[in-house]
């Protein structure tokens, strides 16, 4: 005998909102691709073009011509694109006609992540078994450092993109721990190919600034060039050896170009720091900026040029004195509602 189970209509009615976004079967996507190709050929015929050489740009132009729309948002206008661009990936249904899922870990929820963990753990077990075999035969395990500092593991976002699944921080850290354990084991050569899929190379940054060697001109006098900038002024300086301390700026003598003592002091500062005041000649060109900024630019350029004449220790002293650093200060912009960059309007109580 059958017993009647009493339920409400609420339970029986299908909750459409809670069922989530639509999932597409592979057959559905294939049909969409066929329809798209057919439609492309029809469109080409309609526009009088050759169906074989009808590109995506031609399609967009044709659609814009046939269906003119005044909508502002580009994504709201009528579009005809390849179905792989319209239907997002990983929305295909994961089971076949009879209902059996394709992947053996489907019922866990995160099938690609867990299958990855399963595979990596399998590799770990293989490595341990191989190591045991080699120790049984008598070969001691070698300790090699394989991880050069130029490689890093994939980030969480990159791994999510690779697996097309959402991960949690805990999951990601567990996976990285597994990979690091695999690296530390000896006999990881077989698994290196597998691990390369999950590591990326960082371009090694040059930490040492290359000091240019001295160049020699026609008379055999050593010289070197340097470039410098300050605010808007840009300067290039050529420092010659065996000189008498003469400085030429833009073809003019320094006393004429910089009448103010402060600017000339700025130019002499690098030479004074290195005790080479009367030993070098300098010819420089400068443009832009004002009086003081041009002086600062030439100072930086001459200091950079002097690096080639001087030992590494003295270069370090110059760097610590601040002679080799470009001054990053620029004129700050004036803001609306204020009189200047920082000055506010006078505050009146009434």
């Amino acid at each position: 005998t059958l017993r009647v189970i009493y339920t409400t209509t609420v339970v029986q009615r299908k909750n459409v909102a809670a069922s989530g976004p639509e999932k597409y079967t592979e057959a559905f996507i294939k049909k969409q691709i066929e329809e798209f190709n057919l439609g492309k050929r029809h469109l080409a015929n309609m526009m009088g073009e050759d169906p074989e050489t009808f590109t995506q740009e031609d399609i967009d132009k044709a659609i814009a011509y046939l269906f003119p729309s005044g909508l502002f948002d580009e994504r709201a206008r009528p579009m005809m694109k390849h179905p792989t661009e319209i239907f997002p990936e990983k929305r295909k249904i994961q089971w076949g006609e009879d209902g059996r899922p394709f992947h053996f870990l489907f019922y866990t929820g995160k099938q690609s992540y867990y299958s990855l963990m399963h595979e990596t753990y399998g590799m770990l077990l293989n490595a341990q078994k191989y190591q045991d075999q080699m120790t049984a035969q008598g070969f001691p395990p070698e300790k090699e450092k394989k991880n050069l500092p130029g490689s890093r593991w994939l980030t969480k976002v990159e791994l999510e993109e690779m697996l097309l699944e959402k991960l949690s921080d805990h999951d990601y850290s567990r996976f990285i721990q597994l990979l690091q354990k695999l690296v530390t084991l000896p006999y990881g050569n077989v698994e290196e190919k597998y691990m390369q899929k999950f590591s990326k190379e960082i371009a090694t940054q040059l930490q040492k600034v290359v000091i240019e060697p001295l160049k020699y001109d026609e008379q055999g006098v050593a010289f070197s060039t340097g470039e410098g900038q300050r605010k808007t002024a840009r300067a290039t300086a050529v420092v010659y050896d065996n000189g008498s301390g003469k400085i030429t700026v833009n073809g003019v003598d320094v006393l004429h170009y910089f009448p103010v003592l402060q600017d000339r002091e700025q130019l002499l500062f690098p030479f004074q720091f290195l005790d080479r005041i009367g030993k070098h000649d300098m010819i420089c060109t400068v443009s832009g900026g004002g009086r003081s900024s041009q002086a600062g630019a030439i100072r930086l350029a001459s200091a950079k040029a002097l690096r080639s004449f001087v030992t590494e220790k003295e270069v370090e002293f110059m760097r610590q004195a601040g002679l080799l650093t470009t001054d990053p200060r620029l004129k700050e912009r004036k803001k609306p509602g204020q009189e200047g960059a920082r000055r506010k309007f006078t505050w009146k109580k009434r």
Partner: protein
Amino acid sequence: DDRLLAEPLGHPDFFNVQELFSLKDLFDARVHLGHKKGCRHRFMEPYIFGCRLGQDIIDLDQTMQHLQLALNFTAHVAYRKGIILFVSRNRQFGHLVESTARECGEYAHTRYWQGGLLTNAHIQLGPGVRLPDLLVFINSLNNVFEPHVAIRDAAKMNIPTVGVVDTNCNPCLITYPVPGNDDSPTAVELYCKLFKMTIIRAKDKRKQKEVFYELQ
């Protein structure tokens, strides 16, 4: 088609699962060893043969009967193309259980069990999912030594369960409990081998019968 499905139901042991294991095999795989008597669960007392030096010994005669019933049931489910889900929360044998499931062509879940996987499947796994038709527990406790949530959920969703119950487990809601050790590597390897062989046998039998009835 009806004859295909009705034929195995006539025989008590259509797939001859009795020949897959013997009492000596169970003893060699240390299936009879239970936990200490302090860990004993009240409902496991009928299945325990006795207690030696504080360690419980499981009655292997009862285990033989229960195992034969359980394997027969899984064979029938596999013959009728049901979905079998292996569940085990033991970290030591997770990889083994997953590889067993993959080789059978069935499914496994040896990871953290998310709350609504069976009861809320239409939202979590997608609308129109087919739920498993049989759950096989290689270890029916989770990592906190509590009964696995899947036993209760399967009972709620009317899904039959087969499970290896140790002396500290609750055999109540499992439809085909198999009292036996679930912590030794040899015992777990034996269970995996037995389940794999029954499922493969049942599937082969099904293919044979389909060909046989198509020829007629």
